[in-house]
């Protein structure tokens, strides 16, 4: 629960979504991530920290560099949840299909 809260909260920021979109292309360093944004490195680092704490990205240490990449499991957890939401809503609407099939035989609505 806590995991999903922080994940969706982390996504509620356009810059962080853009960072994730960039990382979907592959691993990137802070410098590489900062360049498309008119934003200071510390500001980007702050966003990265939020994403990391939410379990959406992973940091790797390579000498003095710390490249980030997407955390597959974290992304999948959200994906799975949205899928479940989708399924539950769809179930309601499948039921509505049946209700409509039942009412359809009644008087049709007037034509436009």
């Amino acid at each position, binding site marked *: *629960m806590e*995991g*999903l*809260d922080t*994940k*969706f*909260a982390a*996504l*509620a*920021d*356009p810059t962080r979504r853009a960072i994730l979109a960039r990382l979907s292309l592959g691993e990137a360093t802070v410098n590489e991530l900062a360049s498309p944004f008119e934003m200071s490195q510390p500001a980007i680092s702050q966003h990265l920290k939020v994403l990391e704490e939410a379990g959406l990205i992973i940091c790797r240490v390579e000498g003095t560099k710390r490249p980030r990449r997407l955390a597959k499991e974290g992304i999948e*957890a959200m994906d*799975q*949840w*949205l899928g*479940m*939401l*989708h399924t*539950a*809503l*769809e*179930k*309601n*609407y499948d*039921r*509505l*299909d*049946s*209700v*409509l*099939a039942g*009412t*359809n035989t009644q008087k*049709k*609505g*007037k034509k*436009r």
Partner: protein
Amino acid sequence: MSKMTLKTEGDTHVIVTRRFAATPEAVYRAHTDPKLLQKWLLGPEGWSMPVCINDAKPGGKFRYEWTNGKGAGFHITGEYLEVNPFSRIVHVERMFLPEPTPDNHVETTFERDGEGTLMTIRMTLPDEKTRATMLASGMEHGMEASYVRLEAMI
């Protein structure tokens, strides 16, 4: 195959679309007639809506109560802002879990689409955080039960 789409838009919107093989009149009625609502707006298996009060007119209120028959339950209350029969409904709603969630502003349209109807639900939350919380903690009717199930999974 899926007839429904669910997507986020901007920072505060959630858009759901669904097609139905019935007239806009019929789909509209199924969204406003309490007897019909109780037949389909149930969420996960095993849940039912014993209380469905719905006064579909501008300024009218509604209240839906769900239960799983095992002591768990929650409810939604709301008010209608605009009601254009068979084509458009605008309402606000909040979910009690048991604390009320911030108001969700919902515009639902029913458009003729060939022989059927295209329904579009546009939800607007007060801010990014609220939408994030809603998406994370159960947004639609009956979602709380799914959420509890997911908690057990992750």
